[in-house]
């Protein structure tokens, strides 16, 4: 078993772990981390494929560099959404109970 296929399997495992977290955990921060784990798993599959035959494939590596920046932008936006949602809910809760 060569290094490339080891990391291919590891990438698939990380992706699955992230999927499991996304489906089963409830806290928004944990879910955002889970999505990031899925992204890391995908990147690992791509980079392992890039190094499969000894010489590195610059196209796949460049795609992953782009993907990293896109991932951090999406994470930043998702975290702000989660914080805004939390603030909204804590503002809503007292009035909601009052109406009941």
């Amino acid at each position: 078993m060569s290094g490339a296929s080891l990391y291919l399997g590891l990438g698939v495992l990380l992706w699955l772990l992230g999927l499991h977290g996304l489906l089963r955990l409830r806290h928004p921060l944990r879910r955002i981390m889970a999505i990031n784990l899925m992204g890391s798993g995908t990147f690992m599959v791509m980079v392992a494929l890039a190094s499969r035959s000894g010489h590195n494939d610059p196209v796949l590596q460049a795609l992953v560099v782009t993907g990293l920046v896109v991932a951090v932008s999406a994470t930043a936006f998702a975290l702000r959404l989660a914080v805004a949602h939390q603030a909204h809910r804590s503002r809503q809760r007292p009035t909601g109970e009052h109406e009941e």
Partner: protein
Amino acid sequence: MPATELLLDITLGVLLLILAGAALHGTRLYTGIISFIAFGLLLALVWARLGAPDLALAEAAIGAGLTGVLLLSALGRHADEPAQPGSAVRTLATLLLGVLVLILLLRAVLPLAQGPQPLPALVNSQLEASGVSHPVTAVLLNFRAWDTLLELLVLLLAVLGVRQLQPAGRPRPGVWPLLQAWSRILAPLSVIIGGYLLWRGSHAPGGAFQAGALLAAGVVMLRLAGLLPLLRWENGLLRLLVLVGVALFLTVAAAGAWFGAGWLNYPAHWSGALIVLIEVAATLSIAASLSLLVVGERQELGR
């Protein structure tokens, strides 16, 4: 493949899996986030092992550094999670389903490793014409420049989206004196190393993304230490910095489409200079946008 290298790979893999599990299932959310940051650092090591130093640099700065600051600052504004009652039946079903999906995915992915790999030879044969000598930079800014252009647009979109949300201003905790002292030393270093990575990017691993992320890390550190004034959105210079990357890239692309060989096709003699120019502008934009994404508050992003 020597046994020691395999041992290192397996150790790294097991550590990554343990840290990923701890990030999701650590008893306290704080523990989970710290595990996630450690996961990012180890991932940078894996990229280096797989022969992708560009990625290792970017991951260490972006994946581990900036994402960590983002998660920790979001944690400060979140209520702690309620304890989740675990159900044995659900866990068993998840495990079964997980193993099934794992087998399916492995059957799909593992054969890919035996496929032909025509792209490296193709890139190397065209490298002379691209204007730079580092293949990853050539792909990012010449052969697949569309990706980079759209990525800058996504970054801009994220900044605009965060700005719309009007994040609540929160008093920062008191500044630790040692942090101030250290950031006075580390911030100039981040400028020097960022500039070096940018300059090196045309012929060796490095480039606009890594340099931009490092500069952003420096700005974030100074801002957290209270040494930098507010980054105000009304400040024209800041808006110019956020926009200059996309603006210059689009100008070059449109000029090529009107007067030259076509959209994002650089003229042959100018391609080296144009790529460096775009990289400098993109570095500034990435640094400004990432800093705003990480430390932008209502006073900074609001009207």
